[in-house]
């Protein structure tokens, strides 16, 4: 059975390492993957009217992230049934439960990685995870600080448990 999994992302390459580590650990399954970013889009009617998911992704994700995203997609081609990015825009537990139901998510992947946000509109929605009625898996990723390739695409190649 194909599983749908949710992974929180903050559009840094480090957060992609959660996905990479998870896929490395579970090599024989097929997954529909949703990378979710918590975003407060506000109440303004005009903003809601002109809200575009693609434009928002372009605004938040830098080139290195997109490249790393594609590299991972190519690497795990047979494991990934679909891979997309979406925003969670709700502000309470019920909204999050709805979101999970809507996507028919079977598993949430959490990690020890602390999401960092570049805009004030983004928020950390991992606090809703515990009360959601789905399986939660926590992954440990090592967190190198001050490596030369910080912020570059190269980051996705290292910074992981399997090197050595």
């Amino acid at each position, binding site marked *: 059975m194909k599983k749908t999994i949710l992974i929180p992302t903050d559009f840094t390459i480090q957060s992609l390492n959660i996905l990479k580590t998870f896929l490395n650990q579970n090599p024989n399954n097929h997954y529909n993957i949703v990378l979710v970013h918590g975003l407060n889009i506000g109440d303004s009617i005009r903003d809601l009217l002109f809200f575009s998911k693609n434009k928002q992704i372009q605004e938040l994700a830098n080139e290195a992230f997109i490249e790393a995203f594609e*590299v991972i997609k190519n690497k795990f081609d047979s494991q990934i049934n679909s891979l997309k990015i979406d925003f969670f825009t709700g502000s309470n537990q019920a909204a999050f439960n709805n979101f999970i139901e809507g996507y028919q998510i079977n598993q949430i992947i959490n990690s020890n990685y602390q999401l960092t946000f570049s805009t004030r509109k983004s928020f950390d929605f991992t606090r809703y995870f515990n009360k959601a009625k789905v399986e939660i898996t926590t992954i440990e990723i090592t967190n190198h600080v001050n*490596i030369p390739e910080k912020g570059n695409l190269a980051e*996705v190649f290292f910074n992981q448990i399997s*090197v050595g």
Partner: protein
Amino acid sequence: MITTLKKQSRTVLLLLIPFLIVIFLFSIFIYFSVSNYSEKNFFKLLEARAYKVAKERLDEKITKSDPNSPEKLPHEKDFFIPIDNTLDIKEQVQKIGIPASFFELVINNKSAEFVSKKYLYKGIRYQSTSGDYIVITAAENYFQINQADNLIRTLLFAILASLILILYIALYFSKNIFKPISEITEQVKEISSENLHLRLNDSNRSDELNDLARTFNNMLDRIETSFETQNNFISNASHELRTPLTAIIGVADVVLTKPRTNEEYVETLKIILQEADKLDNKTKALLFLAQTGFNGKVQKFDKVRIDQLLWDVKENLESLNPKSKIYLDMDLLPENPMKLKVNGNTQLLHLALSNIISNGCKYSNFEMVTVSIGASDDFVYIVIKDNGIGIPENEIKYIYDPFFRATNTKNFEGYGIGLPLTRNIIRMHKGTLLVTSIENKGTTVQITLPIWQINKD
């Protein structure tokens, strides 16, 4: 000074000439439309007058003074010519001084107009009780005599006044428009190869001239860097080439001072051979650098599988120097092998990659060097990471200068040609080379090569 004056007067002329043409055409148009209008009006008046006098004279009806009927015009002349057998047009033509066609027009069309220098003539065919008559009313051309001169004078005065005004404006403009340009010219003239550090003043205004100054400054930046690179290159190259030569000359000199034993000669020749080899290597590397940097030469490009190439490089380097430890990380290898193929020259790419990887081995004292491959839909990425001495932060911008060697590389052998050569090769393959480093922590080199595409020529 003369050139600026010329420039200014040219702008003034450029502004003046179109303006003059426009205002002249305007004046002519006004003049003719006014004169045409007043003539038409006058002919209407004459026609009305002709009917009136004809009624009075020929029908002998004294109309009551109608407020609408026109009074006698200044210098008015009326002619009544009966249309019968005695009508002699030639005589009338001489008498009144109007052409014969006028009479024919009146007879046939019942009305005609004629303009002479001083008079306007209106002729009508009038049917009176005593037969048909040609009635001609003539009056002085009122407009031509009284108003035309005035109109022309007014127009000429307006042209003159506006000419002075526009001249003033044009002078003001030309002065102010060209001031910054001539300033820039002056400043640029001051900059020569001796003082390339000079820059043009640019304010924060965002207009075209400021853009121009900024563009000039950017160009100067690039010129300055390339000048510096060239200067460095020459001094570095001559230094590098001289070092082995000095050694050869010195050793030979010392040996020749007195007779030596055979063993000593052999040893000396060995040293000389060694130094000559070094010299040979350096010139070879230089030659290669020049060849790859030269765009005119066509290299043969083929499909190259990057992972295969990397295995070759690894094998090759490990056989050359058994101390090298190279780990090929295939973790992110794409599942589709088509995405690992690039369009390139195997020998050149081999050279570039072994340059980078052997640098990694060398500067990390033969610690593990990790080489990873990955691919997106358009690019192949090769990442080479070592934990060596790194590159000092303020020197990273010079790493592509030929013969440049970072200050912390004193204990390592090298000429400083490898990286510029590699960059030339990567550039030939339309790829990019990105070097990031932290001193004493390590260096990461990221090579991006465009993927081989089927429908490419």
